[in-house]
């Protein structure tokens, strides 16, 4: 049915994040063994002990870029990989740590912790000098984004298996609301409660609304998001502008930042 001459070489790299996406892969249970046999997994930060970085066909990159050394490594990965996949919301949009990306206050905070120089002293410098958190797309070209905090197997597997089969995954952005209606749920927004479903990328199967919890946006931004209208709606149900922005920024990272600036 499809062409697959040899198993592609895959590397899974982790930068700043909770490593939850790597863990999610190991937790796929039924599929975990298949994951290790359907491709040639040469580097898996969490699951393997060797540290040599090989040449890979597909690089799955988790986490945001928070230090100089990570930035250098990220660029090396881009150099040697044919396909780079941003894995998880941190790699895609910056993640929660993106909340601290403000360059001005970042310097102040560094000085507060490390003294006047604002630099980590050499004997503590294990991972490189810190920089404000950014998604990997800020520095390199990213071919595919698989958001999620953490990623869901249901969303990850079909994209990944196409990649290792030499096929192009279909990109079809949907918001959480679509999956929420697949599940037949009632809608928070109609009952005066907030929900970020309309501005959040689908992929989680509307996990939260399906158990009666508002979506807080952990799958990052939906490509068709209409922020001005969403902000109006949330204000209409009683949230202050400040609260709305804070909620949107929690997982929205650089995309929300750009949208709020009107880019």
């Amino acid at each position, binding site marked *: *049915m*499809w062409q*697959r001459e040899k198993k592609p070489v895959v590397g899974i790299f982790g930068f700043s994040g909770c490593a939850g996406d790597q863990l999610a892969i190991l937790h*796929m249970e*039924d*599929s975990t063994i*298949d*994951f290790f*046999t*359907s*491709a040639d997994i040469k580097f898996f930060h969490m699951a393997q002990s060797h540290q040599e970085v090989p040449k890979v066909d597909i690089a799955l990159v988790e986490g945001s870029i928070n230090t100089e050394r990570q930035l250098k490594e990220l660029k090396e990965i881009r150099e040697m990989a044919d396909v780079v996949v941003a894995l998880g919301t941190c790699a895609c949009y910056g993640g929660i740590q993106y909340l601290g990306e403000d360059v001005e206050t970042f310097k102040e905070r560094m000085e507060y912790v490390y003294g006047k120089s604002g630099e980590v002293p050499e004997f503590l410098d294990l991972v490189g000098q810190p920089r404000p958190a950014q998604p990997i797309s800020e520095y390199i070209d990213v071919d595919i984004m698989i958001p999620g905090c953490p990623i869901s197997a249901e969303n990850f*597997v*079909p994209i*990944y*298996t*196409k990649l*290792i*089969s030499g*096929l192009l995954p*279909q*990109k*079809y*952005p*949907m*918001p959480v*609301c*679509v999956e929420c*209606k*697949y599940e*037949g*749920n*009632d*809608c928070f*927004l*109609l*009952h005066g409660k907030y929900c970020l*479903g*309309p*501005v959040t990328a689908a992929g989680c199967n509307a996990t939260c609304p399906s158990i009666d919890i508002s979506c807080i946006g952990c799958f990052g931004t*939906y*490509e*068709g*998001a*209409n922020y*001005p*209208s*969403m902000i*109006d*709606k949330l204000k209409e149900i009683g949230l202050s502008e400040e609260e709305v922005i804070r909620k949107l920024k929690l997982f929205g990272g650089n995309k929300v930042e750009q949208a709020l600036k009107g880019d």
Partner: protein
Amino acid sequence: MSKEKFPEFVELIKSKGKLFGPVKQKEKYSFEEIKDFSELDFDYQRTIISPKKFITPAKYSTLRFVKFGQTEVLPDDEPQIVMGVHPCDIHAIKILDRLFLGNIKDPYYAKRRENLIIIGHSCLPDDKCVCQSTGTDMVEDGFDLFLTELDDFYLLWVGSDKGLGIAIEAENLLEENVSEEEIQEYVRWQQERSSMFTTSIPSYKYLADIIHLNYDSDVWEQFGEKCLSCGTCSLVCPTCNCFHVDDKIMMNAEEGIRERMLDSCTLPYYSMVAGNHDFRPDRTARLKLYYTHKLKEYIGRWGQPSCVGCGRCIAYCPVDINVITVSNALFEEVCETQEVCDQ
């Protein structure tokens, strides 16, 4: 049929297959599988998801494939019975039948439809029902059985051979002769029901023309600015049936499934074709498609809109974009420019 006999009647129906009916879940209603008569609640206006879920489910697979072969996945043969379906939703199924069972029969739909028994139920409108405008407030066909609930008895209509079969089996629960008095009560009920509608689509007769005249109106922009592209309106609409197809390969990279899932023309890539050409990149163009397709193009093609007035878009769009707000805005636009509003 007298009301005391009703539970027994439901029991009989249940013996014909998997029974579904309206169930109250917190503030919403949903068609759910019925194990016990007491779960049924016919005193409802609308479920969030219409009975289309029995014939074009949100997600289902149509094909299973391995490296060098494939097998079609057809729905199983188990009969499903859905009770409590209102006239608008029955009209919606008639529209879906026309699309899926027309010149080209969709095998997945056909199989599910064949195995579905529809038992309609009368209803009373709320302020969101606009079926009177769309002429779908009553049904003459499209069901197997239809129950009209009056004060202390039901009137039962038979709409198909399958329905007749059930009625014959239920012979001892039904009374054959309907008295003159009972007919009078039914007529009174009908009249009362007709007078209960409070919402209507303005100048419905001219809607197709009004939309045509307003094709370039700014009104669309205003709605486009508000729309969240959330897809809810399509997913809850009983006549929306667009789906999206994707092949999913399993983790072993050896086998997979082809999946259909419901889609919405309000989503950003809906009109994208090969080479990344997108005919409707903005929300305004997409909403215009939704409403011109429903309220104008369908009338041109079938003499009837593909809106059956169920009120779901009115109830569930989070930013109040629906058949009423859209047709009102377009109507007002015409009124400002033409002299057609005083009919």
